[in-house]
């Protein structure tokens, strides 16, 4: 290689870099980056952004230009693959992307599954942003309202904000309806007698607390929830039977319970980000039951 070739090459490279930076400079004011999308969300969320939060960028470069947005209850590799295939490079996830509450891979840092997921994100230049604390803080609770809407229930009752008065039914019929409408395979578990009358349902997606459950069940007949802890809300519901109050519990799993909320999140984001398509990518019930 001669000196002239080298300098020519430098000249060409220099010009290309100059063009790129000029384009980027213009892009910053007009183009929709992941950072711009999250800034809009922060401005519209309706509550102060928390100093300590799990919400934020978990993978990818915030300056990436967004071609489409996918909302999901949990950014599994399958969800990421479907989003990428549909041209949605910005993924808004309620639950973690890397197997832990803080999205640190921990012991799985060298694990082939983690590495494959990370490589896919890098290769497709995806950006993953967690949206959990602030989504949950919206009032009224969007997740509960969306779950109730999915079940064909309209608010509201004489009780709390998440209490729903439904046409009188039995626990058994309600369970059958919930299973069908939420397309549950094996993840539904319940407490209570199938024949018990149900009129008032406390809708609590995700993980319910004992104080909110105990308070709601003063009025409600049943709690419909995602992932009740089996040393907390589950024995409380069980003990209502031995204390002759007989309250029902329907547990559908965290992902299934929060999915309608992330569909509603997509609808809300469309109003904030009209430039690109926003689609909800669903995660179906991961469980099945053994044959008996």
């Amino acid at each position, binding site marked *: 290689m001669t000196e002239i070739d080298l300098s020519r090459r430098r000249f060409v490279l220099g010009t290309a870099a100059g063009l790129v930076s000029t384009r980027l400079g213009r892009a910053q004011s007009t183009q929709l980056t992941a950072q711009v999308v999250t800034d809009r969300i922060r401005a519209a969320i309706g509550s102060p952004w928390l100093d300590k939060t799990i919400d934020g960028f978990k993978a990818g470069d915030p300056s990436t230009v967004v071609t489409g947005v996918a909302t999901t*209850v*949990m950014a*599994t*590799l*399958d969800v990421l*693959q479907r989003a990428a295939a549909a041209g949605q490079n910005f993924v808004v996830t309620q*639950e*973690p992307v*890397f*197997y*832990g*509450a803080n*999205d640190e891979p921990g012991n*799985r840092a060298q*694990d*082939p*599954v983690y590495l*494959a*997921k990370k490589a896919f994100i890098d290769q497709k230049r995806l950006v993953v942003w967690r949206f959990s604390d602030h989504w949950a803080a919206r009032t009224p609770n969007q997740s509960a309202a969306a779950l109730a809407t999915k079940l064909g229930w309209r608010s509201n009752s004489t009780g709390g904000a998440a209490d729903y008065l439904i046409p009188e039914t039995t626990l058994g019929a309600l369970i059958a309806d919930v299973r069908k409408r939420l397309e549950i395979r*094996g993840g539904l*578990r*319940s*407490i*209570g*007698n*199938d024949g018990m009358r149900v009129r008032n349902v406390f809708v609590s997606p995700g993980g319910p607390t*004992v*104080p909110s459950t*105990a308070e709601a069940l*003063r009025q409600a007949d049943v709690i419909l929830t*995602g*992932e009740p*802890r*089996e*040393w*907390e*809300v*589950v*024995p*409380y*519901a*069980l*003990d*209502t*039977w*031995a*204390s002759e*109050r007989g309250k029902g519990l329907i*547990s559908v*799993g*965290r*992902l299934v319970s929060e999915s309608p909320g992330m569909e509603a999140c997509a609808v809300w984001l469309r109003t904030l980000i009209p430039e690109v398509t926003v689609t909800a990518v669903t*995660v179906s019930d*991961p*469980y*099945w*039951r*053994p*044959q*008996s």
Partner: protein
Amino acid sequence: MTAEQIVARIQKTLLEKGITWRAQTVDTFKAGAPATEVKGIATTGMATFDVLRRAAAAGRNFVITHEPTFYGHTDETTGLRGDPTYEAKQRFISDHHIVIFRFHDHAHALRPDPLVAGSARMLGWTQYASPSEPRIYVLPPTTLGALATEVARRLKSRAIRVAGDPTMPVTRIALGPGYGVPALTSSFDVAVGGEAAEAGGNAEYLLDAAAIGQKKGLILLGHMMSEDFGMKEVAEWLQGFVSDVPVEWIPAGEPFS
């Protein structure tokens, strides 16, 4: 023989095994007077109201429970005052002079851990325990579907949940008690345990592994289906040094229908 004398005997027996009683522990009296004269002991996975009724009917006024009595890890009851179920349970406890003691942290400190050993025994896996790897069981080759069916049959469970391809081949299983479901890795096929956070853990890992063609399985027994049987082991252990009063396992059973 009082309840506190029985606890002192438990502490002494643990010390002889090299297990010092912890300064910070949830293993404390949760209800009743420790000085109460014990007529009989009931061990259980969880002191549900129903378990207390059965214990009282059987004349077992000292209940040793693995999990909480009042719906939280620390059995904090301040927020429950005035709640009709909580108040009814407390009233029943005092009317029947029941004493409740939690045996959680120190039970898990025993070797083998009786909570794991009890489940392994119920599942028929004791003989398959890996001699070198804790919590690992190496089973004769089967499939996830066949394994899950066998597990549900042995535990007589109605509410076991399984994730993963039912046709996947299985030999290596990791068994953990209660909320301690082993984290799936590439070193074994199936994680078996009580309950687990669905997001940010095994379910997510399993779905991701499937997306790159690696088959993993998860069997969630439910918390009681994974630890109740261990408290039977604890009852047998207690019988070794408490002969003055009867000791009986009263299962909490599966809460779900």
